[in-house]
């Protein structure tokens, strides 16, 4: 037994201990890498946090009225356009019918003339001069008639062209108005969304808040986005909840996003605003 230890302790046992230490470290490294490569797949499953979002619905009566008006106006424009098209089609048909009737009449006239000439040939020559005079008169008449008809057609065509022009012009102006309305609507929408976002960030709901609670605030603002005042127009019944909504409005102000709005849009939509605060996502 003594000799065994004596053999181990040659050079104070350093070679064997160095070998042991290095082997130990390499083993640990290999084990770590192996464990990691085994664990990698399932350790990366992310746990999605439950998102708590605060929603409030903006029901601005002005915006809503504006929307309905806009829709009505569009519908009216559509109707007008349809009516105009129908009228035009009817006019064209009328003109065609007139032209056809005229042609028929001319043919009849020509047939009469031929008959008359045949008759006249058979009749005496003395009446020929008078007849000729009459024929001349008739030709003159028919020419006049034709001229009148051509004039009529020309006038009709010009009237139609004018109508089309007028219609196109009207359409262009209405499209421009529509475009303006749409950009204004978009501006209002984006500003409303920004206000919503700002309010959502600062709205701290009290623990007494419940789903279905609803408080309506009426706020007045300056064009700089500063808040003049906020009054509760319809309470939720819970003073803490009402106060939290009020606090949110005050701490979110000034709404600097509103400064970039044209003053006309601001006056029409944001000078006075009704805000509805309503939590929808609470657990209880």
């Amino acid at each position, binding site marked *: 037994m003594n000799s065994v230890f*004596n053999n181990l302790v040659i050079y104070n046992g350093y070679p*064997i201990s160095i070998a042991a*230490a290095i082997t130990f470290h390499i083993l640990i490294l290999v084990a770590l890498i192996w464990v990691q490569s085994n664990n990698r797949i399932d350790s990366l499953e992310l746990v999605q946090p439950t998102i708590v979002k605060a929603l409030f619905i903006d029901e601005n009566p002005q915006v809503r009225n504006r929307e309905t008006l806009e829709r009505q106006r569009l519908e009216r424009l559509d109707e007008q356009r349809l009516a105009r098209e129908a009228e035009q089609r009817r006019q064209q048909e009328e003109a065609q019918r007139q032209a056809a009737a005229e042609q028929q009449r001319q043919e009849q006239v020509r047939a009469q003339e031929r008959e008359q000439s045949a008759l006249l040939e058979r009749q005496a020559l003395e009446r020929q001069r008078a007849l000729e005079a009459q024929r001349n008169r008739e030709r003159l008449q028919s020419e006049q008639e034709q001229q009148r008809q051509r004039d009529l057609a020309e006038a009709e065509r010009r009237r139609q062209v004018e109508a089309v022009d007028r219609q196109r012009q009207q359409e262009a102006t209405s499209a421009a108005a529509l475009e303006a309305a749409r950009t204004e609507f978009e501006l209002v929408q984006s500003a409303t969304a920004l206000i919503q976002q700002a309010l959502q960030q600062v709205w701290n709901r009290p623990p007494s808040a419940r789903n279905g609670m609803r408080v309506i605030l009426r706020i007045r603002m300056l064009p700089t986005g500063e808040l003049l005042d906020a009054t509760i127009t319809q309470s939720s019944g819970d003073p803490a909840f009402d106060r939290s909504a009020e606090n949110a409005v005050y701490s979110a102000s000034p709404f600097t996003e509103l400064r970039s709005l044209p003053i006309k849009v601001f006056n029409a939509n944001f000078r006075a605003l009704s805000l509805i605060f309503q939590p929808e996502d609470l657990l209880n």
Partner: protein
Amino acid sequence: MNDDLSILELVLNASPAVQFVFLILTLLSIVSWVIIVQRWLVLSSARKGVLSFEHRFWSGMDLSQLYKEGNRMQQDNMQIVGMENIFRAGFKEFMRLRQQGSVDAEAVMEGSQRAMRVAYSREEEKLESHLTFLATVGSVSPYIGLFGTVIGIMNSFLGLATQAQATLQVVAPGISEALLATAMGLFAAIPAVVAYNRYSALLDMITSAYITFTDEFSSILHRQVHSS
């Protein structure tokens, strides 16, 4: 980027300062393990030596014969450890002084005791060499790891400052790498501390056995001096 984030890649992609810390900690860990294994061999052989020599010493064998046995072992190129060295030093001095004849009993005792004290302190020195290194590793390597962590986190936050959007993906690898430094520091420190405590207890046991043996042996010598 998260998909193949292994420890090896973390280490390889770390910043130079943190890599330096990793290197130091790895070396410290390896060296401390070398010492742990080597001390274990030395201390356990010393303990075994104590037991076996005590057994032989109290077996009623003649002291001069025991000494001669040791001479034979030395001739066979076997190491003589611990307690036997003390015995041999004391006995050699005792015999030499006795052979001179003119010396009185107290001087003989004093001389052999001095020789045994010298041999004892040499043996003790052999046993406790490098144990302080384990203590140092145990107390310092957590600080080194912490240093690496601080540097790593500092770097990752510096990197964060240049980003427009601060996402977790930007910071996470840096912090992970930084925490790895602390982990390595602890990994080096824990075995070192455990081994240091264990070995110093063992050392106390062995040295107290040596001291006891020295006293017993000198009392035997004392008896021999005064009986003759």
